[in-house]
């Protein structure tokens, strides 16, 4: 395949291996000017590797790579940037200690001299206004003080800012993973506007409706190869899932719900003393969803419930042991220097110890059990947690909570950036564990996940504004409550 005049990216037979793992195994991939390509596939299908090869952060072992008509012989972030490639990486890549403006400044080495920070400030704020009107972010705010949703807005807006080098291709890797539906819609609309002006876009998302709604063409990757490619209009959800998974079609998760009226109450958030405006009840065996726009107090409520388990809180009653599955796994989840096994076992150390010493045998047995139950893909549980793909790291965090003695599992948007196959596995496991009497309280930014819940509470500005039963849970109801039209 040769690079035509209008091709921004033309990769042919590109291969890249990490040890024995063939991350890319002969990939042909083309993006034309003014085209938005959706890239979907499992975690570990090779999307991130492909994207990194385009962005110049990694080299490849074989194959021909052309970007904007120029053959790449070595990898260089600087060269890719010069050729017009911009990338939002899946793991948030802002400096948390710097201001929004300073972060923008760092990605524009051409802005120099006195006043460059001020110009960077103007640049990023203008772009934020353009993409996310009403964003409420100031250029002098420290990024670490922003909510994760706003951080992602800054990160996305930053790749669209232009100083000297032209922008030809923007790679958005899970750009909406922390955005609420409002901001997501703003971003998708902006992407379409940018594409209309001739910018190309590679859009990676596990939210298939986003991919279907905003791309021109879809490339499905599986096992380091391009499995299927075709115009977006020829795809629907079922087809996409089938192409990704390869064998089974998507399972529907509308599990028959039984009322658990007589089950003991596990968590109660009271109206009078709490910050919440409504009661929240969670009984044994229930799966409770928390929803609403991102960063409206859902995570804080989870933290409060967690703290109430060990410290008296007049507004919150918790009657059983608690474990948390973190969403922001880099910050709150993994211990990066530990092995997979140690990461799983850390919540259960006292159960695994005898005479104050950790029993290696028990620990390993527990790890193996949960590796099998969750299908954590690693040759050895003794490997570093960072050797796992993002989805598998998240599975390890699930294993940590589920392997513990906790009867209440709090989940803080744990499926961010996790592939659909993993999600389906975990949903099934959650149902199974709930049937055994565990209580799940689940904050999620994805509507489809709420269908797993017995009851969904919608939060707005830190207060519970609506309680929806399983039958009432749909996008419309949640949106309506989130925006305060009706309770």
């Amino acid at each position, binding site marked *: 395949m040769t690079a035509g005049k209008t091709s921004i990216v033309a990769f042919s037979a590109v291969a890249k291996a990490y040890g024995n793992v063939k991350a890319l195994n002969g990939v042909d991939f083309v993006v034309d000017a003014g085209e938005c390509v959706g890239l979907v596939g499992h975690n570990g299908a090779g999307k991130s590797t492909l994207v990194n090869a385009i962005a110049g952060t990694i080299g490849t072992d074989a194959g021909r790579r052309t970007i904007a008509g120029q053959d790449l012989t070595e990898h260089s*972030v600087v060269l890719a940037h010069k050729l017009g490639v911009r990338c939002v990486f899946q793991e948030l890549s802002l400096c948390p200690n*710097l201001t929004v403006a300073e972060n923008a400044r760092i990605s524009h080495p051409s802005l120099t001299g006195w006043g460059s920070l001020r110009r960077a400030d103007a640049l990023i704020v203008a772009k934020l206004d353009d993409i996310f009107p009403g964003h409420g972010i100031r250029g002098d705010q420290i990024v670490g003080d922003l909510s994760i949703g706003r951080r992602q807005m800054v990160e996305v807006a930053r790749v669209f800012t232009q100083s000297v080098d032209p922008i030809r291709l923007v790679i958005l890797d899970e750009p909406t993973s922390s955005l609420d539906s409002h901001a997501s819609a703003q971003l998708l609309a902006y992407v379409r506007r940018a594409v209309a002006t001739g910018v190309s876009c590679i859009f990676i998302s596990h939210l298939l409706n986003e991919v279907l709604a905003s791309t021109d063409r879809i490339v499905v990757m599986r096992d380091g190869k391009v499995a299927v490619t075709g115009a977006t209009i020829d795809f629907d959800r079922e087809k996409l899932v089938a192409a990704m998974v390869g064998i089974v079609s998507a399972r529907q998760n509308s599990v028959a719900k039984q009322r658990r009226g007589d089950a003991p109450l596990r968590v109660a958030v009271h109206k009078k003393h709490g910050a919440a405006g409504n009661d929240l009840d969670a009984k044994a065996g229930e799966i409770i969803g928390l929803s609403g726009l991102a960063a409206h107090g859902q995570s804080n409520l989870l933290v409060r419930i967690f703290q109430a388990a060990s410290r008296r809180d007049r507004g919150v009653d918790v009657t059983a042991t608690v474990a948390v599955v973190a969403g922001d796994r880099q910050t709150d989840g993994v211990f990066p220097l530990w092995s997979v096994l140690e990461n799983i076992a850390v919540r259960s150390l006292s159960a695994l110890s005898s005479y104050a010493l950790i029993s290696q045998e028990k620990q390993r047995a527990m790890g193996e059990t949960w590796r099998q139950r969750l299908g954590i893909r690693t040759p050895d549980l003794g490997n570093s947690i960072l050797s796992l793909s993002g989805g598998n790291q998240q599975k390890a965090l699930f294993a940590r909570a589920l392997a513990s003695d906790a009867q209440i599992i709090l989940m803080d948007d744990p499926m961010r950036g996790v592939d659909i196959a993993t999600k389906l596995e975990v949903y099934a496991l959650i149902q199974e564990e709930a049937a055994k009497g565990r209580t799940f309280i689940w904050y999620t930014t994805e509507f489809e996940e709420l269908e797993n819940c017995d009851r969904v509470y919608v939060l707005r500005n830190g207060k519970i504004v609506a309680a929806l039963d399983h039958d009432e849970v749909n996008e419309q109801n949640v949106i309506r409550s989130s*925006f305060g039209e009706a309770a």
Partner: protein
Amino acid sequence: MSSTASARPVNRTSPARWFDLSPTLLRTALPFVSLALMLAAIGWLNPRAISYMGFNLMLSLAIPVALATIAQMFVITVNELDLSAGFFISFIASVSVTMLHDTPLLGIAVIAGAVFVYAAIGALIHLRNLPSIVVTLGMAFVWQGLALMVLPQPGGKAPAWLQSFMAVHVPFVPFPIVAAAAIALVVHLALMKTSYGAVLRGIGGNQAAVARAGWSILHAKVLAFTLAGVFGVLSALTLVGLSTAGDANIGAGYTLLAIAGVILGGGEFMGGRVSAMGAVAGALTLTLASASLLSFMHIPTDWQTGANGVILIVVLALRAMIERRPK
């Protein structure tokens, strides 16, 4: 869904603003509040100390401490730690009272060479991915040994120009205060207001992100260590300018004093959160605490180091309380 969403303007941010800003502001103010409290306590115990002469005496040692603190701050900015700073200062001080006094050219060459070694250490730490604590701990012994070779017994003589520089008196405002303010301002502008300053701090915050944006981490770390070397030299020179003679152990306490100054000034060991103004304020606070307050309180010298530690813990506890306020 999007039509419902985008139809109504969302202004969900304004109530959160006050809280967004406040911890940062309090945090920035804390080092200066500590310094003001320290001065108030001294003034209460000994009103005569709060005078032109009093400040000149109490704060004379603040200049070398502030410079050493700034040196350490550059290293902490890029997520490293320099445990050799004190002995490096001892070595430079020893060279200053011997070679720099007797054969100025040789002295200058040796000092320049020492700064070059600092830069090389920075490169080594980055290229070999070594823990800076271990490397600089090793270097501490090297500098100490070299200092003893240059100046086996206390003595020597500081160059006359250094002594006269440190004896400068400025009208109305005590010289140490002028010098400290100047140091703080220059470093603040360089680190907080320039583009490359943002890159240096960005490395402390998220090194991978800075590298992906196309900046050389090696370049930045070498620069940070070079600046640490330069400010270490300045600290040593001002120190011998005050003491007029040298001692191979003259800077021994400066390693921990400088680290304490950075932390007291609002900095953190990891994450690129530093403040030049705060660091200088922290250095002044520590100097005042050890030299004046504790003496005025008639605390025996044996206990003063411990009392200094208590001050540090109190301030850090206050900061932790600020951090824990809900966002």
